[in-house]
């Protein structure tokens, strides 16, 4: 169980995440939604320890993660929003390096890397430098690096970015399978249809604050709206989208 208690993050005094409290449970996929700049990725980075929270507490299985950050990192897998990778390394070299940094046994890591590369369809390109990989291929490398040590907590920040239809379907099933095997999965995405299909619960963030935290079914009933898109639009989209699109078209024609 991953729990955030009154977590805030301020950059130069300006709040990016403001008093966020929610819990993600083992065995289910928790969707973490919000518009661009709402604080989703900042929350993810605070959970991973990449940036420190200004206030509040993050607990994993009841223990504050900063009590033993090293032990926490051993049990966590993370797919970041941006596919920043060491592009001068080949796919297999990068994954081997991550396995060594995670202190996995050489034989075990070699088997897992070979298996992951084969299952993700990267086996033929494993010796090519990552600089030659497409965005989708880089995303698969990130997924492999996040999963190879069989983590208990999986943080996925826009994991479908750049994936083709087939790979996206595989990933969707994989996320469900991992949750079914008792993992805690926190999943951030703008693809509301996918979120609606695989998430048990959603947390919706707006301007750094939580505006909804419930199961999708409860939210539908509560707000009397049939789709997650409708719920999200009402809670986290302030703009009149049609009017804005008209104004953009007018602006470029002027």
């Amino acid at each position, binding site marked *: 169980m991953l729990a955030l208690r009154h977590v805030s993050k301020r*950059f*130069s*005094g*300006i709040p*990016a995440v403001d008093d966020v409290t929610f819990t993600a449970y083992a065995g289910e996929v928790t969707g973490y939604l919000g518009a661009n700049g709402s604080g989703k990725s900042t929350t993810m980075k605070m959970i*991973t*320890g*990449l940036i420190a929270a200004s206030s509040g507490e993050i607990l994993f299985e009841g223990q504050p993660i900063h009590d033993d*950050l*090293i032990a926490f*990192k*051993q049990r*966590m897998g*993370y797919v*970041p929003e*941006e596919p*920043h*990778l*060491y*592009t*001068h*390394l*080949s796919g*297999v*070299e*990068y994954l*081997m*390096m*991550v*396995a*060594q*940094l*995670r*202190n*996995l046994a*050489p034989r075990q890591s070699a088997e897992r890397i070979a298996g992951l590369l084969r299952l993700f369809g990267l086996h033929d390109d494993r*010796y*090519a*430098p990552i*600089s*030659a990989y497409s965005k989708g291929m880089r995303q698969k490398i990130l997924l492999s*690096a996040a999963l190879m040590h069989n983590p208990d907590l999986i943080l996925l920040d826009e994991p479908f970015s750049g994936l083709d239809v087939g790979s996206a379907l595989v990933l969707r099933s994989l996320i469900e399978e991992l949750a079914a095997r008792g993992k805690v999965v926190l999943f951030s995405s703008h693809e509301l249809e996918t979120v609606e299909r695989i998430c048990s619960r959603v947390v919706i963030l707006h301007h750094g604050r939580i505006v909804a935290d419930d199961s999708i079914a409860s939210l539908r009933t509560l707000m009397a709206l049939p789709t997650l898109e409708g719920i999200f639009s009402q809670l986290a989209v302030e703009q009149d989208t049609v009017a804005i699109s008209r104004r953009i078209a007018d602006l470029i024609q002027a």
Partner: protein
Amino acid sequence: MTKLQFRVLCRVFLLRVVDLELLADHGDSVRLLGQFAALLAAISFLFTAPLILVGGRLPEETIWTMEHLLIATTMVVVGLFSVLSWDSTFPDRRDVLVLAPLPIPPRMLFVAKLTALAAALGLSILALNVFTGLIWPLFFFPATNGVLASMRSLAAYWMTMLAASAFIFCFVLCVQWLTAQFLPRQVFLRLSAFLQVALFCLFLCVYFLEPSLETIGALSTSENQRLLVWLPSYWFLGLFQRLNGSMQPAFAPLATRAWTGLAMATIGAVGAYLLSYLRTLRKIAEQPDILPGSGRRNWAPSFGGSLRTAIVLFSLRTLLRSRQHRVILSFYLGVGFAVVLACVRPGLGHRESSHGTATADASLPLLIASILMMSIAVLGVRIVFSMPIALGANWTFRITEIYRVPAYLSATGCSLFLLALCPVWAVFAALFLFIWPRGQAIGHLVILAALGMILIDLSLLRFRKIPFTCSYLPGKGNVQFVFWACILVVLPLTTLFAKFELQALHSPSRYAVVIVILAIAEILVRSRSVVFARSVKALSFEEVTPAEILGLELHGDGGAPLERVLNRP
């Protein structure tokens, strides 16, 4: 519109001479460039200081020697600049991908690149000659002549420097453009790093090893004519003399050769450019930058422990595959090599024969050379470790930080050991075991290894980073301070130590004393570095740590600076 586009492109390309992505959050590329300019100006002052102190008229041959030295120095600096800016000559892949969709003619991209390079080059020449170019020309004409002659000397000096610089710059461009034109792009990318290093060594070796021929006799004799064909710095000495009004016939063929060389290099560079710019641009856009070393096998030896293996292999692969890091390392090794050559060249002519030993015995110049090269290799690799590769990707290390800090620092030390100490030690081991008696060779190699270990521990005393993963902040390293410290402190100390070691190699008791002293020094330095490693709470991935207290940075009128408002996350 076109003029505005051109100005914007020139400004962007000029600032891109430094790779902005490796700088820390508050890093300032202008400051870094300013530091290099100050270093060049300091060299200019160094060449002028003796004249200011001594004053008066100088003998003609001394003046010619000085003229040649200043021309050769300008040429070598421009040569090194051209090699260092090799990757900035053409628009790179990022430039093409960002700028090609915009309505900018490809010709403008190339011309803007060239203009930015020429501006940077001009500033370098100006900085290097800021003192010498104003004071020395006043001594380069006969004292009996008046103000007009001094003006002519001044004009001749600057014209010669510009011509010599243009010759070297165009020569390097010719080499680069011709290889880019006739080789497949991937082969060119792989080969260009080696070409850079080769040109680097060529310029330094010519500068330090070319003979002194600054007399009429030496310039006129038929034996030297074949040599002079290959020494462009003497061509431009002849050019300067002719422009300055010298009627000595010995300078005429040299000046002709200078004009011919300049014309050929310029025509070659312009011609190659005109032929290739469109083709090269298309190649850059169409063919990805395939980096070297992407073979079909996964070479993954173990270096003891998975963390150590990961960091050593990462460092090794980065140094082997990143052209930028390799060139920076080549720069330091090249400068070190030049210093070594300058130091040992006088001594190599006549072997030491002190202590009644045979000529094949260990010699002082080679002892100094090996110790200096070891120091420079350790320092160079340590500096290159501070410069990141793909800074945004360092989350990989941060997210997998499951060991205590000392384990990472130990792995970093191991990387420095393997990448700096081992290659230099192996080269000198092969040399000394071949030319010296085995006992003396082994004796010195033990000392060299011990010195290398001490230097590694010293250089990592305040280093709390994984190589190539932390942002870079210009000015923190204080390049000038390190440079002058090395010249003024390390050199005399090395000479003193080498003299003592030379005696120790012939006396077992003295040798034992040296070994004991080195062992004690290593224990002390190592214990300090262990204490430091234990005291470090976290590895550093950003050179500028967030401030404990938030500064409001208000303007005098109480308003917030515009950039702060705009840069809100």
